[in-house]
Each structure stands twice: as structure tokens, then as C-alpha cells.
């Protein structure tokens, strides 16, 4: 401001200078040449000083008034009204004079003061000049000062200020660069994420965050750091995804990366929790996707939205055809998940205990312990998940109409799963076992139902012809049982030992040798549900076990030796005479031992074989299978009984085993469909489902013709084949026992004692029918009734009825021999028939003797004679020792001779005689009096009442 003022002042100064200079010169000139101007007036005026004085004094005061007073006007006002020339003239002269005086005076004064004025003016001029000079100097100074100011001071100050600014900006630039890098990092992080380099990503991210903290005074940083935070979250998410990938297919490198990343994040524990959840959801998703795929594929229509279904519901939509492939896929996929889990565990185990030195030891250890525990727990959890998925799947479809092979495939898959589960976490897999059991049972029940129907059909078509097999034939010779060969072959003859050994062996094998069959590192890459099945598909499901039996299973294995020879003879025509003889002998000898089997027996055995096979795979329902096996036997037994043993002739025979009766009764109520009674309420199909209708004997079987001995041949085949079957069951007993839990063994025992052992008992009713009809006992009886026993003399000849009887027996024997040519009659069979025959004859004897109204001592002797004659003749026909119920006859005859007191006790002791027979005895005895007789009759009647 001062500058500015000074510059202004200088400007003013400059102006004054320029103006004053010419004035000064003018003045100078005028002043020095002014003298002539004054002198012009002098020549005209000549005045007297004194006078002048007076005139001067005569000037009115008004004229001295300097204040703009109009003198002309004053003079005019003085003029009188009436103007007088003279006066005016006088006044004018006076005024002139005055003016002259004044002018003169003034001129005098000017002249007088002029030198003073001139000097003074000179001085002023000088002053003016120096002032002007000073002003110029001053102006110059100012000018220069301002230049200096302009050029120096402000420039350097600016420079300083600028420098400072620059420094600040450089700093800022650095920060901005860093921020820019930070921003770029985000992209890099994403790249890393894609490269799955989580560790570096996290490190980078964390670094960035640290940096971000130092720069937090920038506004933009807060945004950036939130972004970084987001990225970190995103990384974690990515990690999570990566972790979940480990569930599907475990990749060591990949997993290690992820784990390291989690450690960096300090979230190892969370990771483990997460991992387990991922496994869970992986299991669920895999299962769902696979089943969904198949369901969608099968439905084809796409009209239903399967996505929205629950897994359980989804499983029910699967068709039967796609069940197995889907199951295989499901198992494979789930196995993959489990394998990943295993690998995860192995990875963690393989980690060195002290992984990082940075963190404290205890921390790491705790961490590892935690992980270890977590993973161990997880095993069970994951297996539970897998198990439930498979279970739900398996139970979703009804498999009962599957073919056996296919069903066994399914079972094998599930079993494999169970073994895997066992290996996986030592779980007993109750759920799977349960589903296995349920499905097996369902399947097997269905299968069994068909087999029972088939058995019925077989029985109804059965001609009860002997089916020739070799003499050593047992169930083991059948194809169906060949899978069991090594069971017995390997370990001697003690079948019991064999099986326990076998079972033990298997257990040992499964416990030790095969413990890590599936989860071994080497084998792990191979999916257990993959290849094995391609092989199995082509062969039988029990393949392998046959192979070694080639020698036995050649085509003639079941041909009896002698028939084999026959065959050779026919082919080669070799010298027959010698051979034929031998053959006949051998045939004779063998005939008795040849196993008697029917086609149906063989079928039952085949079915048993198949059941045994099924049992080996259907272990959980082994007991039910055995139950069904027992049903096969029950039905066979029941059929033999109804066909051949249920005739009225023997049904009331008291000698028939009551246990057999109970067995038959049990079978009937458990197994046989009641014939619908008209008008009765409809049968509950639920109950009847397990039952089958009673069989009807094939019309080609004739059991009533006398010529064919009432179908004795068929009876023999039937009963003996049943016995044979029973024997086979007994042979199977140890095997069966080894397959069921000990708690169920009691049932098996019961089955054997109550049913299998009853097979032999069944011979009696079957054969006795023949015995009962072999002789026409009524004819004999009527013959006897015509005999008079009150003869008075000892007879030497027996009665003719004995001859009739014996002839009957001879005829019967002949027929028996005829039958024996058709089927082998073992001694036990013929003995049974004969024994019963004799027993019945003996009863006829007693009945016949009791028919005697009167009897003499001689008559009693005749009875003895008749009986002895019969026994003698019988001995020539058939050799039976002892004669059954011989005492019955002899006792009855001899009782006649007893004295009264002994007769008393005899009656009470011998309940085997009927009332009628006893009464007849008492009445016929003639050596006791009437009173005693009456008493004995009372005793008999009383005991009869008691008996009732």
C-alpha cells in the first residue's frame, strides 16, 4: 500500500514538475521585463503630493469596502431627484481626481515594493528548482525500490512455499500409489482365488489390511478396507467351497492348500466343523442327485416335479429295472465320499505333530487333538448319514419280484456297504442290517411262497416213483449244494467242528486279514462297487466254488455204479455173462441200500440248496430261511401223511405216536389253508397268505388197488423218501445250526425233535394201512365166530380159519415180493408191515376167541392149537422176532385157567383188552360160581366207568 501511495505521490510530483517549469520561466521573463509597462502611465499624470493627500482622504469610506460593493450603484443613488448638471459634473471631476490620486498612489506603492518582490521571487524559484530535483530522486528511488521488491522477495518466498508444497505432494503420491496397488490387489486376489492359491491370497489380503490400517486417514481407505474385508470373507467362502470339494474327491495337494489357508486364518477348528457339515451335505446331495437322475430318466414323462420331493419319496418313484444300477451308482458315489473322508483323516494323521514353530506347541497340539477327536466322531456320523441314505433307498422299492441273482447282487452290494461301514468306523450298521433284513425277508417270503406253490405242484404231479440215484447219494451231490463242498471237505468229518471252524475262520479273516480291505491306501483308488460286478454278471453268483469239484460234478456223478456199468455195457457190448452176474448180485445187494428218493424229494433238496445259498448271503434272515426250510419239510411230511397215512383204517390206532399227531396237527394249523366252509365268514387273507392249500394226490397214484397192495410201492417211496429227506436234514443240522444265533437254536432243536424225527414215525400210519387191508380180518373173524369152543375132547387138528388166514398171508407175502421188485423194500419196511399185520391178526384172534359164548377146557386148548399153528406157519412166511402182541393172545387164552382170586387182579392189570372181551372171558369161564362171576363183572364195569 505504501508502494502504491508512493507511486501516486510520485505521479503528482511529476505533474507539478511539468506544470511549474514553464510558469517559472514566464515569470522570470515578465519580472525582468516588467518595468516598461509601469512607465507608460507616468508621462500623462502630474500631480501635487499634498493635494493628492487631501483628495485621498476625501474618498468616501464606501470605496474601501472590499466586500463587492457596487460603487456605481452607490453614486447613482446619491443623485438628487432633480439632476443638476453641474453638480454631476463636479462630482465626476472629483471622482476623477480621486481615481487619479488612487492610481497614482498604487503605482507608487508598486514601484516602491518591486525589488523586494523580485528577490523574493528569485528565492522561490530556487526553492522550486531543488524541490523538483528532490522529487525526481525520490521518484527514482521509489521506482528502483519497487523493482527490487518485485524481483527478489516475493519470488524466493514463493519458491519456498512451492518447495514445501512439492514435498507434501511427493508424500501423497507415494500413499496414492500404495492405495492404487491395494486396489489392484483385489484383482490379483481374485486371480489367486482362481488359481486356488488360497494361502498367498490370504497372506496378501491380510498384509493389505495391515497397510490399510496405516493409511486409514485417507477417506478412500475406509472403503477399501471394507472391500478387503469383503474379499477376505469371499476368500473364506471360496475356501469353504474348496473344502466342500474335498468331500467329493479328495486331492491331497488341494486339501493341503485349503488346510494351510485355514491355519493362516486361524480357523482350523471352524474348518473342521465346516468339513463335517460339508460331508453331511455332500452325502445328501450326492444321494439325492443320483436317485433323482434315475427317477427322472425312468419316468421319462417329466410331468412330475421330482426336485421337490423328499429323498424318501423320491426313492419310491424308482422303477425296479433301474434299482440295481442306481444302487451301484449310489454306493459308488457314497463310497467316494467316505474314501475322501478317510483320506482326510489319513492326511491329518500324516501331518507332523509340530507343524509350525511360530505358534506355541500346546496350541498346535490341542488343535490336533481336537481335529483328531472331531474326525473320529465324524466317522460314525458320516457312516450314519451314508447308512440312512442307503437304507431309505433300499427300503423304497419292493424287490420281491426280483430274480434271485439280481436280488443277491443287491444284497451283495448292501453287504459290501456293511463291510465297508464296519471298516470305516467299526459300526455294526444296524440300519443297513435292518433294511437288508427287511428286504431279504420280504424277498425271501415271496420267493418261498413260489417255492411252496411249486412244491405243492410237484407233490400233486408226483407219481411216487423211485427216482434212481447212486447208492451213496446225499444232498451234497446236488449242484445246488456244491457251494458247500469246501465246508466239509476241508476239515474232516466232524461236521460240527467243521462249521465252527469255518465260521471262526471267516470271522478271523474278516477281523484281521481283511480289516482294511477297502480303505487300504493301495486299493482305495479302486471303487469296490466298480469292477467286481462285471465278472459276477457273467458267472453264477457262487462261481468259483464249483471249479474244484470238476471231478465230482461230471455228468455221471449221480448215476449209481451199477447203472454206470449198464451204460458201458450198452455202449461197448463187452462180455456180459460174467459182468451180468456180478451186476445182478451187486444190484441185489444195493437194492436194499439204494436211497429212496422221489422227484419231489430232489426238488425239495434243490430248493434247500438254494435256500442254503441264500442263507449265506442273507445271513440276517438265516433263521427265517431255516423256518421256511422247515416248512418245506413240514409240507412234504404232511403231504405224505394225507396221501398215504390218513386213511380211516389207522387213524384211530392208539399205537400211533401222539407226538406225531401233535406234529401233524401243528403243521395243519400253521401251514395249511382251511378249506373254505360255505357260509362261513371270509378267511382273513392276511393269515392265509403264509399258508398253502392242502395237496391233492395225483390221479395216477392208485392206493386202493388190492393187486398193487394198496399202493405199497408208492407208500414205500413216499415214506422212505421222507425218511431220506429227514436224514438229509439231519446232515444239514450242523450247518444250519452254525448259521443262526444261539438264541434261536432251541427252535431248530425243536424242529428236529418234533418234526424231522417224526419222519420215521410216519412210516407206521403209511404202511399200516397196507397191513390193515392186507388180510380181510372180518372174514377171518366171521369164520372164527362159527367155531364151537365148547368141545369136550382134545382136538388134534386146528380150525380151518387158520388155513384161510395163512393162505391170505402167503398171498400177501407174494405181493410184497412183487412190490419189492419194483421198489426196494428194506427189512424195516417189511418188518413194519408184517408186524402190524401180525398185531392186527392177534387182535382178531383175541376178538374171535372172545366171541366164544361158551368155552370148555378143551376148547381153550383148541385156541392154543390154532394160535400155535398160526405162529408156526407165520414163521415159514416171514421171520419176525418177537411176535408183536403175542402175549395178548396167549394171555387171553391162559386167563381162562386162572383161579378166581387171580382172575380178579388179572382183570385189573390187563387194560389192553376191551370190556367186551373181558366180559366174554368171565362169562366163558366155567370153573367159577355165579356170585364170583357177578363180582368180576362189576369190577370190569366199574373200571370201565373209571376209564371213561
Amino acid at each position, binding site marked *: 500500500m505504501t508502494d502504491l501511495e508512493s507511486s501516486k505521490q510520485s505521479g503528482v510530483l511529476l505533474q507539478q514538475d511539468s506544470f511549474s517549469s514553464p510558469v517559472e520561466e514566464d515569470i522570470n521573463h515578465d519580472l525582468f521585463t516588467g518595468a516598461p509597462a509601469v512607465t507608460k502611465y507616468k508621462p500623462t499624470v502630474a500631480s501635487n503630493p499634498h493635494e493628492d493627500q487631501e483628495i485621498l482622504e476625501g474618498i468616501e469610506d464606501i470605496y474601501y469596502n472590499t466586500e463587492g460593493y457596487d460603487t456605481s450603484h452607490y453614486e447613482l443613488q446619491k443623485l438628487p431627484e432633480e439632476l443638476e448638471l453641474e453638480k454631476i459634473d463636479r462630482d465626476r471631476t472629483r471622482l476623477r481626481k480621486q481615481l487619479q490620486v488612487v492610481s497614482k498612489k498604487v503605482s507608487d506603492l508598486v514601484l516602491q515594493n518591486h525589488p523586494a518582490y523580485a528577490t523574493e521571487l528569485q528565492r522561490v524559484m530556487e526553492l522550486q528548482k531543488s524541490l523538483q530535483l528532490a522529487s525526481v530522486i525520490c521518484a527514482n528511488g521509489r521506482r528502483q525500490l519497487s523493482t527490487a521488491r518485485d524481483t527478489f522477495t516475493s519470488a524466493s518466498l514463493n519458491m519456498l512455499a512451492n518447495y514445501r508444497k512439492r514435498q507434501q505432494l511427493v508424500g501423497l503420491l507415494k500413499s496414492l500409489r500404495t492405495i492404487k496397488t491395494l486396489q489392484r490387489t483385489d484383482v490379483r486376489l481374485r486371480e489367486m482365488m482362481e488359481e486356488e492359491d488360497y494361502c498367498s491370497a490370504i497372506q496378501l489380503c491380510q498384509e493389505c489390511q495391515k497397510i490399510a490400517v496405516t493409511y486409514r486417514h485417507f477417506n478412500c481407505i475406509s472403503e477399501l478396507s471394507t472391500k478387503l474385508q469383503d474379499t477376505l470373507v469371499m476368500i473364506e467362502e471360496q475356501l469353504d467351497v474348496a473344502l466342500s470339494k474335498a468331500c467329493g474327491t479328495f486331492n491331497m495337494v488341494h486339501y493341503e492348500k485349503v488346510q494351510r489357508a485355514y491355519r493362516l486364518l486361524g480357523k482350523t477348528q471352524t474348518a473342521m466343523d465346516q468339513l463335517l457339515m460339508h460331508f453331511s451335505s455332500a452325502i445328501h446331495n450326492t444321494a439325492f442327485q443320483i436317485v433323482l437322475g434315475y427317477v427322472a430318466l425312468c419316468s421319462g414323462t417329466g410331468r412330475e416335479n421330482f426336485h421337490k420331493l423328499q429323498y424318501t419319496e423320491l426313492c*419310491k418313484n424308482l422303477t425296479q429295472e433301474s434299482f440295481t444300477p442306481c444302487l451301484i451308482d449310489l454306493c459308488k458315489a457314497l463310497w467316494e465320499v467316505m474314501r475322501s473322508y478317510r483320506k482326510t483323516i489319513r492326511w491329518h494323521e500324516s501331518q507332523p505333530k509340530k507343524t509350525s514353530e511360530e505358534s506355541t506347541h500346546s496350541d498346535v497340539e490341542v488343535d490336533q487333538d481336537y481335529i483328531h477327536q472331531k474326525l473320529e466322531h465324524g466317522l460314525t456320523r458320516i457312516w450314519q448319514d451314508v447308512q440312512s441314505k442307503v437304507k431309505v433307498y433300499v427300503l*423304497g*422299492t*419292493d424287490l*420281491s*419280484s426280483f*430274480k434271485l441273482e439280481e436280488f443277491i447282487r443287491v444284497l451283495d452290494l448292501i453287504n459290501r456297504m456293511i463291510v465297508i461301514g464296519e471298516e470305516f468306523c467299526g459300526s455294526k450298521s444296524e440300519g443297513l442290517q435292518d433294511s437288508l433284513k427287511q428286504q431279504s425277508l*420280504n424277498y425271501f417270503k415271496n420267493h418261498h411262497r413260489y417255492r411252496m406253490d*411249486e412244491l405243492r*405242484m*410237484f407233490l400233486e*404231479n*408226483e*407219481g*411216487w*416213483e*423211485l*427216482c*434212481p*440215484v447212486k447208492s451213496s447219494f446225499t444232498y451234497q451231490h*446236488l*449242484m445246488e449244494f456244491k457251494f458247500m463242498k469246501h465246508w466239509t471237505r476241508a476239515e474232516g468229518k466232524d461236521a460240527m467242528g467243521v462249521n465252527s471252524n469255518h465260521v471262526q475262520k471267516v470271522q478271523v479273516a474278516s477281523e484281521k486279514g481283511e480289516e482294511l480291505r477297502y480303505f487300504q491306501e493301495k486299493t482305495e483308488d479302486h471303487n469296490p462297487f466298480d469292477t467286481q460286478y462285471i465278472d459276477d454278471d457273467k458267472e*453264477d453268483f457262487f462261481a468259483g466254488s*464249483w471249479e474244484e469239484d470238476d471231478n465230482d*460234478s461230471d*455228468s*455221471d*456223478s*449221480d*448215476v449209481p455204479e451199477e*447203472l454206470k456199468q449198464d451204460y458201458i455195457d450198452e455202449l461197448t457190448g463187452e462180455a456180459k455173462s460174467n459182468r451180468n452176474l456180478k451186476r445182478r448180485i451187486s444190484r441185489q445187494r444195493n437194492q436194499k441200500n439204494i436211497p429212496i428218493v*422221489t*422227484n419231489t424229494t*430232489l*426238488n425239495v433238496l*434243490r430248493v434247500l440248496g438254494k435256500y442254503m445259498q441264500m442263507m449265506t448271503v442273507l445271513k440276517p434272515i438265516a433263521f427265517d430261511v431255516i423256518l421256511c426250510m422247515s416248512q418245506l419239510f413240514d409240507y412234504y411230511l404232511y403231504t405224505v401223511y394225507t396221501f398215504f397215512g390218513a386213511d380211516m383204517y389207522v387213524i384211530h390206532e392208539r399205537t400211533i405216536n401222539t407226538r406225531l399227531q401233535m406234529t401233524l396237527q401243528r403243521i395243519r394249523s400253521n401251514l395249511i*389253508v382251511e378249506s*373254505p366252509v360255505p357260509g362261513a365268514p*371270509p378267511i382273513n*387273507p392276511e393269515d*392265509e*397268505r403264509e399258508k398253502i*392249500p392242502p395237496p391233492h394226490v*395225483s*390221479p*395216477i397214484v392208485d392206493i386202493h388197488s388190492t393187486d398193487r397192495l394198496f399202493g405199497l410201492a408208492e407208500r414205500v417211496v413216499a415214506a422212505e423218501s421222507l425218511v431220506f429227506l429227514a436224514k438229509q436234514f439231519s446232515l444239514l443240522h450242523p450247518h444250519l445250526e452254525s448259521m443262526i444265533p444261539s438264541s434261536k437254536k432251541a427252535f431248530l432243536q425243536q424242529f428236529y425233535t418234533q418234526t424231522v424225527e417224526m419222519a420215521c414215525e410216519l412210516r407206521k400210519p403209511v404202511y399200516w394201512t397196507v397191513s390193515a387191508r392186507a388180510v380181510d380180518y372180518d372174514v377171518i373173524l366171521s369164520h372164527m365166530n362159527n367155531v364151537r369152543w365148547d368141545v369136550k375132547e382134545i382136538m388134534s387138528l386146528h380150525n380151518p380159519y387158520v388155513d384161510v388166514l395163512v393162505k391170505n398171508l402167503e398171498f400177501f407175502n407174494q405181493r410184497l415180493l412183487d412190490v419189492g421188485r419194483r421198489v426196494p423194500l428194506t427189512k424195516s419196511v417189511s418188518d413194519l408191515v408184517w408186524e402190524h399185520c401180525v398185531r392186527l391178526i392177534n387182535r382178531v384172534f383175541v376178538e374171535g376167541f372172545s366171541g366164544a359164548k361158551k368155552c370148555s377146557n378143551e376148547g381153550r386148548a383148541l385156541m392154543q392149537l390154532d394160535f400155535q399153528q398160526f405162529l408156526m406157519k407165520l414163521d415159514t412166511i416171514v421171520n419176525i422176532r418177537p411176535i408183536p402182541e403175542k402175549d395178548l393172545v396167549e394171555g387171553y387164552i391162559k386167563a381162562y385157567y386162572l383161579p378166581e382170586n387171580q382172575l380178579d387182579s388179572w382183570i385189573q392189570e390187563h387194560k389192553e383188552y376191551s370190556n367186551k372181551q373181558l366180559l366174554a372171558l368171565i362169562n366163558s369161564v366155567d370153573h367159577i360160581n355165579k356170585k364170583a362171576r357177578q363180582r368180576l363183572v362189576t369190577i370190569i364195569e366199574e373200571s370201565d366207568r373209571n376209564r371213561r
Partner: protein
Amino acid sequence: MYKTVDWSSRTATCHVSSRRCGILDYVRRWYGILDYVRTTLAPTVPRLPRDFLFKFLVIGSAGTGKSCILHQFIENKFKQDSNHTIGVEFGSKVVNVGGKSVKLQIWDTAGQERFRSVTRSYYRGAAGALLVYDITSRETYNALTNWLTDARTLASPNIVIILVGNKSDLETEREVTFLEASRFAQENELMFLETSALTGENVEETFLKCARQILTKIELGELDPERMGSGIQYGDTSMRRIQKDTSAIRKPDCAC
């Protein structure tokens, strides 16, 4: 006609059982019927109600491949490890012949002489028979007459027999020409086909042809299914039908 009867019996069963099981089961049962309707509309479904049941025989000398033919027919597989049949074996299959579902009850007999007496008892009442010989063995061809007589006398004079020359895949070892065999068939009023149990060629056709012929004879009235021992039954006995139906209807129950 037959189907309508069947229908009414089906619905009747449903009503009876629904009363017992409550509304839910009733609904399920109706679903069962829907299921049934669906399956009947499909061309070949094994769960069809059977119209007929034919008893079939497979006879012929030993080693001609009878069991293999049966196995191929039922399992659609060749039986590798085949032994001589002991006695009689059995197989059944439901086939569709001329729009009717027919259950074939097939008795596969042993060809060996020693089993002759056992197998004969199965001849009785057979509606159809496959008389099998081996085209690579003249011996088996020569035995045909005996087998034929057996079949005609033991089974039924009306039995429908188809002559089957098996092992047609072994062309190089052929001993019996097609012409010769077809002449034999013509003379004895038999149908004739050459099959291969190994490849499955003509196997199913054989059974179908035989079944078709029997159906034709029934339609012409030459065979009377009502006659005892005809080897033909109308479906199942009524008892079995009810059971079958309930079990079929119960299917959805089980799946739940």
C-alpha cells in the same frame, strides 16, 4: 367276457377288505387298482391275470439240450454248467399268446433211460410237448418214434407236440438234415423248428408256437379245457385268484 368277470371280482375284493382296513387303505387299494389298470394297458406285464395255464413237457433223449432250452427260455441265458437232469425239473413262465396271457408250466424231464419210469408220471395231462433231438446226433433222432409213442399214449392223444432240432449252432457237425426232420414231422403231424439253446435262436418261438396251436385248438373246440387231464386250466383256481389279487393290490402298501 372273461375280463369283465375278473373286474367285478377285483372290485368286490376291494370293498371287502376296505371295510376292514379303514379309509386310508381303501384309498391305497384304489391306487392299487389304478396301478392295475396301468399295467394292463401296457403290452406285456407279468402281473397280468392269467387267462390260461398250459402244462408242457420237454422230452427227448439224453444230452439233446432240453434243460438248456428251458433255461434259455426262462432266464434268457445259456446254462453253461449243465449236468444231466435227475428226474424232472420244473420251470414256469407267463407268455402272451394272441393277446392272451398264458402261464406255461413246463416239466423238463430227464432224458436218461433210467429215469423213464419217473418221468412218465409227469406226462399225464400235458397239453403240449417239446420233442427234442440233437441235430448232431442221429441216435437221438432215431429215438424220436419211441418218445412220440410215449407222449401220445401217456399224455393224451390230443397233445400238441412240436419237434425241436436243437444245437442248430453246430452246423458243421450236423447229422440230421432239416428236410429229413421236417418230413418226419409232417408224417407224424408235428410242428417243427430247429433251435439253438446256445444262441437262443427259435427257443421262445418254439414255446409260443406250441402254445398258439393249443389256443387255436381250444378255439376250434378240438380241445376242451374243462376236461380233466387236458393240461389246460382257466387261469388259476378261484382261491388262488383271490390271494393273487390281494397280494397284487397290497403292493403299494408294502412299498410304503
